[in-house]
């Protein structure tokens, strides 16, 4: 279970303080696929950086399981990080290592035994359907295949949740569909909670059961995807939907 309470973050800008996140609240149940959608500059990236603690929020709590990860010390935090896998828009793979090594990486740094790592890498690569690419290097793969490696890597430490930052925004339409259906499959098979941060309405519509619309650092609307989109209340949701229709 993931719960975010009263999360706020300010940045110092030339003309004074800018509220990047304003009192964000969020609660996920196990097995949810939760979409967070917003336009550029709405606070999506800051939210992601705060949830992953690449950026320290000014106030609030982030519960993963029973622990508020903001209250952990460095060492506790490092081991708690294994509970959340992160998938990035531009994959962030080790370009000098093989696919197998990339997937093994989170387990290696966690000090898992070698034979266990080897077995798990094979399982994970099969799960993301690139079992035949283990000895390839990322440069030899297509964008979709690279994102599959990144997903396998994010799943390596058996996380409770998968946090995806614009996971399909660099991919073409067909590959987007395949990656999204892979995420759905993982969600169903492993009961992994998934958070998808995106600006793509179609990605949210395709797989998210819940959605939050973010604008100016706060959630303007939140609920079950179908209800929110069938009956949009805020102007920003209408705009996001309208843009989608006009395409």
């Amino acid at each position: 279970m993931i719960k975010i309470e009263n999360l706020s973050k300010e940045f110092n800008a030339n003309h004074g303080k800018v509220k990047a996140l304003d009192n964000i609240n969020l609660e996920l149940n196990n097995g949810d696929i939760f979409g967070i959608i917003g336009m550029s500059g709405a606070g999506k990236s800051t939210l992601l950086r705060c949830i992953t603690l690449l950026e320290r929020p000014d106030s609030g709590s982030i519960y993963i399981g029973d622990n508020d990860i903001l209250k952990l010390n460095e060492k506790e935090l490092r081991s708690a990080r294994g509970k959340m896998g992160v998938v990035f828009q531009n994959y962030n793979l080790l370009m000098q290592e093989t696919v197998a090594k990339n997937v093994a990486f989170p387990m290696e740094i966690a000090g898992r035994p070698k034979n266990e790592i080897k077995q798990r890498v094979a399982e994970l690569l099969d799960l993301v359907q690139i079992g035949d690419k283990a000895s390839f290097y990322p440069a030899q793969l297509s964008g979709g295949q690279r994102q599959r490696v990144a997903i396998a890597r994010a799943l390596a430490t058996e996380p409770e949740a998968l946090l995806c930052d614009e996971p399909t925004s660099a991919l073409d339409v067909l590959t987007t569909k395949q990656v999204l259906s892979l995420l759905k499959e993982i969600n169903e098979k492993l009961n992994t909670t998934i958070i998808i941060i995106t600006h793509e309405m179609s990605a949210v519509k395709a797989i998210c059961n819940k959605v939050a619309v973010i604008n100016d650092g706060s959630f303007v609307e939140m609920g079950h995807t179908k209800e929110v989109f069938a009956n949009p209340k805020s102007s920003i949701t209408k705009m996001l939907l309208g843009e989608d229709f006009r395409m």
Partner: protein
Amino acid sequence: MEAFFNVYGSLLLYSTLETLYMTIVATFFSYLFGVPLGVALSITKKGGIASSPTFNSIAGWVVNVVRSVPFIILMVFVIPFTRLVTGTSIGPNAGNVPLIIAATPFVARIVEQSLEEVDRGLIEAAKCMGATNFQIITKVMLKESRPSLIRGLSISAITILSYSAITGTVGAGGLGDMAIRFGYQQYIDSVMYSTVILLIIIVVLIQWLCNLWAFKADKRNRN
């Protein structure tokens, strides 16, 4: 020609070996000290994984100071230290001491520059996975920048090679020494040209080997 090689052939060979010896030993030690220093400069920078502006500016200042001392001055200046370390102030081993002192900060900057090329997103991804700073340095930064580090090695080794020729002026041995004593002081042009040609060959070889190595090591070239 044959007469020339009869007289100077074995000396040229010996000097070449001495030069190679000095270049290899000095490069090895300046990397031994320069890599940790370069890593330290890189990670303590603003936005680095162990950001420490105070350490960074002090270390940066020391590096800049050593690098701004002209090598020929530095070489003479450290002679007491050289004696302390090697027991002598002449010969290749004595020449290596100022070489390593001068090359270490140079190597540190070259390494620092290579590490700058590592994608920040990748370092953040490793952090998200729970990597310690040491793991980020060894498994991400140094690994990912390997091809660039190898290209940097060619720059460092060639610079050290040319500096090793300068150590010839104070009797460190090698091709520089030979060029000074025979070519410059005794006006034997053929010796001077021979040493220069040998130095050119060594430079070309270092560059060629490092380029080949860097290309082979860079997995982004696989397809």
